[in-house]
């Protein structure tokens, strides 16, 4: 189940990146195209089949995992700040792009790097599962979760408002799909606590969240592509 979900998420992210590749350098919403490129990297690095060779190339000291974490941060920063702006939530946008948001991002990124250097992570291990008993690695993981949860929580309200508004059905479906995705990211937090620890569930929810957000964005692009047919504004 998890493996199928992971490969599906990778295929979807890769397809979206290729679809948007013309706008990676110049063009419409470059940041969004980069978010998908980074998402593809992140999902790819969570698969052992890709992680292990890449990490071997980087010296077999799990530097690839740091790369994975930082690219996830990039995805969330680029994506959630755009979603907040798209759904007209200046507060959410300020919480992500403003001083507070940038501070959270900086602290989490720094935390990741420091915890990585303090920990002893010799020997490639996808998702660092072999080292979870180390307190440094626990801190490393919590820094990783902190920023994604923070950014997702910021846009949950904005997407929910749009999902239950009187927009056209396709736009509401798009917003709802993103809402489910970002809510799932937040919902994984309790399952990471020692009390309710459930890693398989966390994995399933994480990759389902990626799929939901990607589907939401694809729906936005379809709606954008049909704008002339619908008699909407000429954007």
């Amino acid at each position, binding site marked *: 189940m998890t493996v199928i979900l992971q490969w599906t998420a990778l295929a979807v992210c890769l397809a979206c990146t290729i679809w948007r590749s013309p706008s990676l350098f110049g063009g*419409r*919403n470059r940041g*969004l195209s980069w978010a998908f490129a980074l998402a593809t990297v992140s999902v790819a690095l969570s698969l052992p089949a890709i992680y292990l060779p890449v990490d071997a190339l980087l010296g077999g000291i799990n530097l690839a995992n740091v790369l994975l974490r930082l690219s996830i941060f990039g995805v969330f920063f680029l994506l959630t700040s*755009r*979603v907040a*702006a*798209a*759904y*007209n939530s200046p507060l959410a946008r300020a919480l992500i792009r403003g001083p507070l948001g940038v501070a959270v991002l900086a602290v989490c990124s720094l935390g990741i790097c420091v915890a990585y250097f303090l920990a002893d992570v010799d020997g490639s291990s996808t998702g660092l599962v072999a080292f979870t008993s180390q307190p440094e690695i626990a801190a490393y993981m919590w820094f990783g979760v902190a920023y994604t949860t923070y950014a997702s929580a910021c846009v949950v309200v904005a997407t929910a408002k*749009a999902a239950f*508004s*009187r*927009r*056209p059905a396709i*736009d509401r479906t*798009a917003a709802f799909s993103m809402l489910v995705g970002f809510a799932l990211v937040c919902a994984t937090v309790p399952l990471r606590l020692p009390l309710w620890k459930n890693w398989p569930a966390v994995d399933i929810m994480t990759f389902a969240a990626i799929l939901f957000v990607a589907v939401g*964005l694809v729906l*936005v*692009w379809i*709606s*954008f592509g049909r*704008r002339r047919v619908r008699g*909407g*504004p000429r*954007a």
Partner: protein
Amino acid sequence: MTVAAKNFQMWLSHVAGSTSQAAVCRAAGIKRSTLAQQLVRGRVSLATIAAVSRSLDLPVVASLSVFPDLEDLVSGIKAPTTAELLSQISDADLLQEILNRNVAAETGNDPIPVELSPIPHRSSVRAWLDAIDPTDLRQKVARNAAMAPQNLSAQISANRLSAELAIDSARIAGVGLTNGLVATGFLSPAEAGWAAGACASALRGTANSVLASLAAERLEALSRVLRRSEDDTAAARNVWEYLG
């Protein structure tokens, strides 16, 4: 609104005799599958009755009154009030009349009569409801039909009103029972018993001041509709701008 298929078939055999169902459908311009489906479900729509009735040159209102709950439709025909007649004149025609009168006043000639566009106009349902009772008619209609007020509002915004609700509204407001069916486009004014040219003569007989305030109300309603649609467009555009 629908009637029982059994009653419909009794009526059909009475008015169409032995004509086959296929021939009836062809003449009435309704799909055979549509009628077949309605008969299977046991409920036939009023639109079907009206279409069959027109194809047989029968008066639509009299045909409808054959069915239970609609018996009082013929006796309930009442000439529309001036307000109802004016409500069925489109915004553009009202404004044109004002302009024509203005020109006439300046040149000293008789105003050129406006060629009224056919009923129903774009917001005919809302205008008719406002004309028959500006206070709490909608709440009463919704309560009577046991439907949520926002569902009624949605119908009105889309310039729709089911035949049942149109008749109900007229009954509650105490106006001619068929008048709402004109506003929804279900009946032509003539079928509903409106005199020919009634709207035009009501318009001619309306004082300038009344016309001006009516136009003001219409423009106010129009501006609300336009603002709503502009807001929706701006929201969609915003999403496309950041995520497109």
